[in-house]
Each structure stands twice: as structure tokens, then as C-alpha cells.
């Protein structure tokens, strides 16, 4: 009964999503307050129903209810509990349900957190949100129903793909989806503004927290996914320029651009049209990513053409929403009032350059991802566009961007002074040059790593120069406390970017070795030595593994032991390499097993990766910066308005 209740709740959620799309929209056109206000309770109820359906599916996975096709195909009664729960989103149907759950949660959040928002804007926003929800709920129910049943259930399931049986999977997709789908709110706000024809600084301030929240989750989700790939795939790489990864990078680049230009719009009412465009773009790229990942088009263009049901459905959603929003944009953007003026050398000017570079980077990622698909569909030629392409194009875009980041931070709004800004960055430039010289002397090569590392240090120091100089004007502590949190947020996020860049630069100084190891014979890897102490087998709950115990030594002393393993999952008859990793400082030693030979030697990949943790720590610092900005009370109009309402005699 729980299963069917979940199924029915999902159907009911679709009915409510349609009501949410129609009634508030009609109310907004008729200027009818009661109809417009239907949006809020319906959005909340729709979320509760989807949550109920999601809970029912999770319950079925947890109790191994093999009367559901989804459970048969992706679960196994012996699977550990955490993978029973995370396995719900480890497959197509379940992950689409999670997608819609996040979407409806965004709708409910708008409904609950928008007291101060004008009725019209809220009604249109939630109507658009409801329409997106209805499209995806219909997609789930009609083409990918997780509640499909069988009358005569089997006694065992076919288990989850072993690569997905990992704690990383438990965290990565929900975070990524919160980011991806979080941009739907911004999209809905933009569409509502275009429909209502009102867009001003207040709009930008309503939108900013949603952009920030989505961006934070997306940043964390991408970082988590990258770390997961790094330790599960056994190749020691953290980014593969795989279309699935690009699918998350594209909205991140667009979202980062949006974050910055929304700041211009809020402060100065400039760049309105551009802000709206980026709001549409960020979620459109999320949709494109969903299409790429979920339609099967990546498996093969031909497979997609021959089995079109799911793919064509998502493609239709994609075309309707992106096309509809862009058409609306083309119709209405011209009518939007132009914003205020600013000089080219100013904070606004710097943010325009930032936006140009970020959107260019975003466009190249889109091209690199779609070009092979388009070429295959048109000519049948199969090509792969990999790291060399993206490195060639993105590095010349990214490095100038990094160079400009602290300068932009130093410039004043409206009219800035370049010379002054550069002078105030003396310390940062000096730190960068010193770092450049030091890394150059230490490693000598490769040039790109040394330049990047120098830039990274400059960025970290530059990010805090502004705050340091403001604080130096007087009582340091009081000044630091007086600074708005969003200023801290900017600095911290930029510094996080610098840390990530340093981690990426250090990849050039890593050591990689593929060796045949004899038990007991130590192997040099960077500053450490690795020796096999033992090779043995053991059984896990649903796999058997062969593992090696390796000692990591420094100067003859064992400082850590790692246990790389090869696992074999019986239900799917698949093998998986489990890397052995130990963190030493900010670097890591990483070992993955290859074949074992008859003479007792064992092939292994051994890596020493200095500073590699900074790549992900930097992303977390970036997200922390976003969080600081989000925590800034000024961003919440409702809070301030209510605070004022509490004191009838204004103090001013």
C-alpha cells in the first residue's frame, strides 16, 4: 500500500503542478489577488506530495520490495543500508524523481520565503515553476515511472552498478541537483519579470539569494563529483572533460557570471537585459545537461534516434522552455528601461569584463561538448574532444580572468581609478612575483604550473587586500566587524578560487609511476617510498576483494599504511579498483592495483600528488564565501521590512 500511495501522490502532484501553473498565472493577468495567492499553498502541497512519493520509493528500496521493477534492477537484499538509500537516485527513474523533488522544494521555498515580494511577481514566478514541474512530472510518469510493478516478484535484485556503490554517490547527486535545479528559481523569476514587464534593483535583490544558494550547491556538487571520480576511477585524474562533467560545468560558469552581474544590477540598476539573459541561460544549460545525461544521446546518437521515447520527451521540454523563454526575452527585452551609466574603468566595467570572459568560457565548453554530437549526427564521423581542446581554449581565458579578479575588487563603483587600484594591490603583486620565483626555483618546470601558482598566490593575497586596507584605516577589530558580510563573502570566495588554482597548478609537479612491485621491495614515489607488506583476500557484504597492504615510508620510517584493492561484485559480475589513498599535509599518496602475476609481483599505479587537496578545499572555501554573502541580512528585504514595521516611529 505504501508503494501505491507514493505512486498516487506523484500523479496528484502532477495535477497540482498544473493547477499551480494555471491559476496564479490567470490571477496575475486578471489582477485577482485570491487567485494569485493560490500559488503558495499549492506549491507547498505539491512539494509534500512529491516528497511522499520519494519517501515511498526509498522505503521500497530499504525493505527490498522486489515487486517494483526499479528495485529489482538496482537493488540487492544484501546491499549495505546506505547504498539501499542512495541507490534510489543511482538510476534513471529515481534520479529524475530526485530532480523533481528538488524542483518542487525550490517552489515551496519561494512560496514560504517571499512574504515581502509583490504578489504579481510571486504568482508569475510560481506559475512558471509549476509549469516546469508539470513537464517533468509528466516525463517521469509517462516514460520513466519508478513505480512500475510486477505481479510475481523475484527473490533477488540485480544490484546497483558497483561503481556507484560508494559514499561519494550518497552526497554528490543531491548536491549537484540542488545546484542544477536551484537555477530553476532564477529562471522562473526572470520569466516572471519578462511577463510582468517589471524589472528593477529590487528584483535583483530578490533573485540574488536564490542565485547564491544554487551556486553554492553546484560548486560543492561539482567538487564532490570531481573528488569522487578521483578516488573511485583509479586513474588519479580529477576532471576528465567528460560530457557528463561538462553538463555541470556549463551552468556553473553561467551561474557565476549571473552572480556577478546581478550585483551590478542590484547596486546600479545597470545590465538589466544581460542579467535576465543569464538567468535564462543558467537554467537552460541545466536543462541541456539533464538532456545530455538522461536522454541516452551520449551513449550513441544513433541509439537515441532509434529509441526516441525518453530522449525526445526531454528534448521537447528543452525546446519549449528554452525556446519559450528566449522568445519572451526577444519580445520583451527591448521594452525594458535602460540602466544607469558607468565609466569603463569602474567596478561595473570590471564585472562586465568578468561576464564576457565567463560566458565565453561557458560557450567554448558548450561547443566542445556538442560539436562531436552534432558532427556525428550530420556526417557520421566520430570524434572525441578531450582535455587538449579544453586546455588550449580555456587556459588563455581563465588566466587573464584571474589576473583581473583582485583589480575588479579594488575598483570603485561608477567611476574607478586604475592606477590607484593597482597601487593598492602592491602587496599582492609582490607576493605573486615572490611565489613565482620560489616555485620556479623549487620545481623549474612546467612553466604553466609555475605561472598559475604565482597567479594563485597573487589572487589569494589580492582577495583580502581590500579588507586589510579598509581595516587599517582605524581600529582594526571594530572595522572588521563593521564590514558587511557580503564583502567578506567576495574576498573569501575569490581566495577559494586562488586555492583551487594552486591545487590545479601543483598537478604539474606530481609523480606518476606504473610499476611491477615485488613484496617487500620499496619503490620511490616523490619524497616517499612505498612497499608491499602483504597481499590477501577477504569478502565484503556483496563483493569479494583482493587487497594489498602497502607501507608508505619517509626516510625509512613507516608513516602510513594504505590498502588498495580490487573488488569483484558477484551479482553484476563486475570488477572495480579501489584506490588506496593517504593524505600527507595537503598532498596525497595514491595507489591503485593492476594485475597480479604468477611470480608474486603486482602491477600498480603509484602517484604522489602535492597540494591536490587544495583543488577541493578551494571549492569549499568558494562555497563558504557564497554562504557568507547569503548570510548578509541586507540581502533579505523581508527581514528588513519587518524590522521596520516593528518600530512605528522610524528612527531616521
Amino acid at each position: 500500500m505504501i508503494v501505491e500511495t507514493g505512486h498516487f501522490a506523484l500523479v496528484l502532484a502532477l495535477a497540482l503542478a498544473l493547477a499551480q501553473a494555471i491559476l496564479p498565472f490567470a490571477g496575475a493577468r486578471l489582477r485577482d489577488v485570491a487567485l494569485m495567492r493560490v500559488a503558495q499553498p499549492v506549491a507547498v502541497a505539491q512539494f509534500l506530495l512529491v516528497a511522499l512519493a520519494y519517501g515511498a520509493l526509498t522505503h521500497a528500496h530499504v525493505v527490498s520490495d522486489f515487486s517494483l521493477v526499479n528495485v529489482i534492477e538496482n537493488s540487492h537484499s544484501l546491499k549495505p543500508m546506505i547504498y539501499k538509500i542512495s541507490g534510489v537516485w543511482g538510476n534513471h527513474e529515481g534520479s529524475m524523481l530526485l530532480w523533481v523533488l528538488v524542483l518542487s522544494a525550490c517552489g515551496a521555498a519561494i512560496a514560504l520565503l517571499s512574504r515581502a515580494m509583490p504578489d504579481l511577481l510571486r504568482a508569475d514566478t510560481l506559475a512558471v515553476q509549476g509549469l516546469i514541474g508539470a513537464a517533468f512530472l509528466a516525463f517521469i510518469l509517462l516514460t520513466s515511472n519508478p513505480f512500475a510493478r510486477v505481479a510475481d516478484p523475484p527473490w533477488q535484485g540485480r544490484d546497483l552498478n558497483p561503481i556507484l556503490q560508494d559514499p561519494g554517490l550518497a552526497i554528490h547527486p543531491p548536491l549537484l541537483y540542488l545546484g542544477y535545479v536551484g537555477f530553476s528559481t532564477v529562471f522562473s523569476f526572470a520569466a516572471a519579470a519578462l511577463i510582468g514587464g517589471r524589472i528593477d534593483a529590487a528584483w535583483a535583490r530578490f533573485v540574488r539569494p536564490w542565485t547564491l544558494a544554487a551556486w553554492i550547491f553546484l560548486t560543492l556538487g561539482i567538487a564532490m563529483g570531481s573528488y569522487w571520480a578521483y578516488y573511485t576511477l583509479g586513474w588519479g585524474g580529477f576532471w576528465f572533460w567528460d560530457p557528463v562533467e561538462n553538463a555541470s560545468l556549463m551552468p556553473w560558469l553561467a551561474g557565476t557570471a549571473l552572480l556577478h552581474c546581478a550585483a551590478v544590477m542590484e547596486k546600479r540598476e545597470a545590465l538589466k537585459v544581460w542579467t535576465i539573459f543569464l538567468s535564462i541561460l543558467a537554467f537552460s544549460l541545466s536543462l541541456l545537461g539533464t538532456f545530455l545525461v538522461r536522454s541516452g544521446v551520449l551513449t550513441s546518437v544513433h541509439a537515441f534516434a532509434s529509441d526516441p521515447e525518453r530522449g525526445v520527451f526531454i528534448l521537447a521540454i528543452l525546446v519549449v522552455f528554452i525556446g519559450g523563454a528566449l522568445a519572451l526575452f526577444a519580445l520583451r527585452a527591448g521594452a525594458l528601461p535602460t540602466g544607469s551609466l558607468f565609466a569603463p574603468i569602474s567596478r561595473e566595467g570590471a564585472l562586465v569584463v568578468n561576464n564576457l570572459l565567463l560566458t565565453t568560457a561557458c560557450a567554448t565548453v558548450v561547443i566542445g561538448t556538442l560539436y562531436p554530437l552534432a558532427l556525428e549526427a550530420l556526417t557520421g564521423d566520430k570524434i572525441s574532444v578531450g582535455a587538449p581542446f579544453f586546455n588550449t581554449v580555456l587556459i588563455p581565458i581563465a588566466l587573464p580572468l584571474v589576473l583581473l579578479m583582485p583589480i575588479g575588487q579594488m575598483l570603485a563603483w561608477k567611476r574607478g581609478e586604475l592606477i590607484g587600484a593597482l597601487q593598492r594591490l602592491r602587496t599582492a603583486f609582490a607576493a605573486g612575483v615572490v611565489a613565482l620565483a620560489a616555485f620556479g626555483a623549487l620545481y623549474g618546470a612546467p612553466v604553466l604550473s609555475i605561472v598559475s601558482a604565482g597567479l594563485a598566490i597573487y589572487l589569494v593575497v589580492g582577495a583580502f587586500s581590500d579588507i586589510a586596507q579598509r581595516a587599517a584605516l582605524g581600529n582594526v577589530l571594530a572595522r572588521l566587524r563593521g564590514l558587511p558580510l557580503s564583502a567578506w563573502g567576495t574576498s573569501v570566495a575569490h581566495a577559494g578560487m586562488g586555492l583551487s588554482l594552486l591545487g590545479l597548478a601543483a598537478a604539474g609537479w606530481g609523480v606518476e609511476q606504473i610499476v611491477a612491485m615485488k613484496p617487500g621491495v620499496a619503490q620511490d614515489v616523490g619524497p616517499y617510498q612505498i612497499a608491499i607488506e602483504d597481499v590477501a583476500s577477504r569478502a565484503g557484504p556483496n563483493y569479494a576483494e583482493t587487497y594489498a597492504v602497502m607501507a608508505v615510508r619517509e626516510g625509512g620510517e613507516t608513516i602510513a599504511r594504505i590498502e588498495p584493492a580490487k573488488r569483484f561484485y558477484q551479482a553484476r559480475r563486475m570488477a572495480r579498483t579501489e584506490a588506496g589513498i593517504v593524505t600527507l599535509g595537503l598532498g596525497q599518496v595514491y595507489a591503485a592495483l593492476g594485475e597480479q602475476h604468477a611470480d608474486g609481483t603486482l602491477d600498480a599505479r603509484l602517484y604522489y600528488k602535492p597540494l591536490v587537496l587544495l583543488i577541493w578545499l578551494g571549492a569549499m572555501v568558494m562555497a563558504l564565501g557564497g554562504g557568507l554573502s547569503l548570510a548578509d541580512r541586507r540581502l533579505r528585504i523581508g527581514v528588513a521590512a519587518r524590522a521596520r514595521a516593528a518600530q512605528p516611529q522610524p528612527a531616521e
Partner: protein
Amino acid sequence: MIWLVFALLTGAAVMSVLWPLARKSDAVDACAADIAFFEEQIAEIERESAEGRLASADAEAARTEAARRLLRARGTSASDASFSRRNAIIAAAGAILLIPAFALLLYGKLGRPELPDASLEARLEAKPGHTDIASAVARIEAHLAEHPEDGRGYEVVAPFYLRNGRPAEAVAAFEKALRLLGPTAHRHNALGEARVMASEGRVTAEAKQDFEAALALDAQSSMARFYVGLEAAQNGDHEKAGDLWSKLLADGPADAPWRARVEALLAQLRGASPTEPAPSSDEGAKIAAMPEGQRMDAVRSMVERLRGKLEQNGADVEGWLRLIRAYSVLAEAEKAKTALDGARKALAQDQDGLARVDALARELGVGG
């Protein structure tokens, strides 16, 4: 009962639409938010310039700009929102009629309200008298999940895995049985044989170790001697294989069930062209002894023969099950699907057989 739950859910959903319609509420001025925003922006500029974080000229400029916008927002401030009883009634009626109708129609098409939940635990408890092997195995698996140190359980399920084309799981189970219950020649042999089947008939180095361990415990074990010979034959050491098998034949009883098979293999090994085809029960062992390339071909031709047989006589449930499993093991999903369709057609009258075929198809993921 389930329909009561559905009715309650539907009622709650409809209420979420009706509730705001029934409440008479004042409109929030569309411009109030703008006004609040700009007032606050001006306050912030004041605060910053008071704390000296903003140069006075800049503060002045920013203040003028914000004030200008504030004036503009006040100027346009005019509420045109209304409340219409008629609209509310139409919307309410629509919601009361359409939401339940839509939900029932779509659910009626997709849902299976007659199917109860079927958690594994409940199913295992519900059918204690049932003798179906698959459920017995599921019961043992559930038992083993709770008592992973029960070696007997592994020893019982392992042969089932082996017979059902799950040799890798059989290997794991036999390994655990061996570890938990202690080594015997029989257990080493069983593990070795499972390994051979898991590697598609090859006697791997690991399997050979098992058979050698069995021989260490029981030097006369005929199964271990047979496989050690097979390993030699597969690796081209015909002399050793011939030697081992001849001794095996000499030592074994005259009516041993494996005698015919070993004799046939021995004959083949010695180059004596096997003019008469070996009895079909020996085919497995013969195939196992072939070089890798040929082996696949032989397996395929055997499967094709089975298919031919079934086309003649479609009532053979076991045959259909073997055929579907064989195609699935050979990763020929298309053919497995065809075989499944054939079985369904041929067994249309045989309810029991049909259920077994369907269960297997689901287990293997054929046709889904």
C-alpha cells in the same frame, strides 16, 4: 483502505487550492517592496558614510541616485489588484472537479492498486510451507545476512548458484563455507569446480590450487585428479594429462559414472579420432577441454541445437529455461528476447511453466 488514503490525499490537495480562494486578503502593493528596498539602500549608504567607509562625494552621488529611484517607485505606486468572487468560484469548482478527475484517470491508467507491498522480509515470513527453490534460497540469503558466520548456509546455497548460472556467487559461497567449516577434500573440490565454471571451463591457477589442496587431504579424490589432468590438457601438457587420467581409470571402480567421459577425453587426447560422437552428457567436459576459440563455437552450436529441439517440441519448460539462460550468459540479449517470446508462445497453456519463464526473464533482465 487504500482508496480511503487516496481520498484523503486528494482532499488535502484540493484544499490547498480552496483555502486561499476562501480567504479574503488585501493585496500587497506591488511597489511597497521597491519602496522598502530603496529606503533601505539609502539607510545603508548613510550607515557606511557615517562609519567613514564611503567617501563623502561618492556617498552623496549614491544617495541622490537611490533617492531618485525611490521617488520614481512612489510615483508609480498604485494598487490595481482586486478580488472577484466570481473568479474564485470558477477556480474552486474547477479544482474540485478537475484535480480528482485528472488524478483518478491517470492513476487508473498507470497504477496497480490491487498489488500489495511486497517487502522481502514479509514475503519470507508469509510462505513458510512453500517449497519453491528460489524462495528457499532467498530465505537462506536473508538468514546469512544476519548470521554471516554460518558456514552451513553457504554450503547449501552454493550448489544452487552453480546450477543457475551464477558461478561467481557460488565461488564466494564455497569460499566462505571452506573458511568457516574448515577444509575437506570435498569442499576444496567444490570450490575448484565452481572456479572452473566461473571462468567458462578453464582450470585457472586458483582452481588448480584448490584441487591440489583437495589431493593433499585425499590423494585418491577422483574429481581433483580429473581436473588436475584437465588443467594439464588445457595447457598443452598432453603427456601429463594422459598419465593422470590413465591412472584415474585404472584406480577407479568399473562402474564409476565419470568413466565414460574420461575415456572419451583420453581418446581424444591421444589423437585417436573419435569416430562416434560422445554421448551428450559428456559434451560439457569435452567443450571444457577445447582451446578457447573453439570452445565458444562449440557452446554456440550446442545452444543452437537446443533451440532446434525446442522448435520441434515446445512443451519442454526446462529446455526453454536453459536456452534463455544460455543466451543471456552469451550476452546475446536479442536472441534471449526472441527465445523468451518463443517460450511464452509455446507455453501459453502451461501456467506454471509460464510463471517460471517470466521469473527467470526478470531475474536475468531479459526483455525488459
